[in-house]
């Protein structure tokens, strides 16, 4: 485990490794915590902390700009369906309506962003074709 959070990073050493301290802005303000793992969501990367909270990459200090996001057509039907099932399962098993950094809200945020891009893009393509 690193002894201090690294404030300045470059693309070469990004993302940070498991066990490192990372600084970020949580739903309640600036914080530092230990990173457990980094995983790709449907659009952006999420940083999972040791305490279970999920922080999107754009809220992590030192995140290189511009961020790398997935294109919506890189997400397979299978991956989308798994995400939909997981969200419904998490919603069914209960959610804390006061804890924004919970996995359910993080995944729902990405699902909404992805679904918007997926169908908004299709709508724009139809309009372009009709012109």
């Amino acid at each position: 485990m690193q002894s201090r959070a690294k404030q300045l990073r470059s693309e070469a050493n990004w993302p940070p490794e498991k066990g490192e301290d990372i600084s970020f802005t949580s739903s309640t303000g600036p914080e530092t915590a230990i990173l457990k793992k980094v995983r790709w969501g449907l659009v952006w990367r999420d940083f999972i902390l040791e305490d279970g909270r999920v922080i999107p990459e754009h809220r992590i200090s030192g995140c290189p700009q511009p961020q790398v996001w997935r294109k919506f057509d890189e997400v397979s039907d299978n991956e989308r369906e798994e995400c939909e099932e997981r969200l419904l399962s998490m919603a069914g098993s209960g959610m804390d309506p006061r804890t924004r950094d919970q996995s359910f809200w993080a995944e729902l945020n990405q699902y909404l962003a992805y679904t918007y891009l997926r169908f908004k893009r299709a709508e724009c393509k139809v309009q372009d074709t009709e012109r």
Partner: protein
Amino acid sequence: MSRSDDETEEQQVWRVLSEAGLVEIRLDEFAERIADVKRIVIVRLRELLDFDTGIEERESAAYSLGTLKRLELKVLANAPKPPPDPS
């Protein structure tokens, strides 16, 4: 959707999602954002039905719409209750 030729695709996606309020959704905004996304899916589904094309996309859009509706109901059911009116 394009605003500037200098904008990279990543910047364009960021702007589109930011303008739609979908990059950072606050807890009290989720139900509203789900409703917004449902409207986009409904528009697309209507197009697909009107043109009678894209059976796979139509089924997938209908499934996503159903998922959004179920999530919306759960989110609304779990919304924090407002404090009681003192009057």
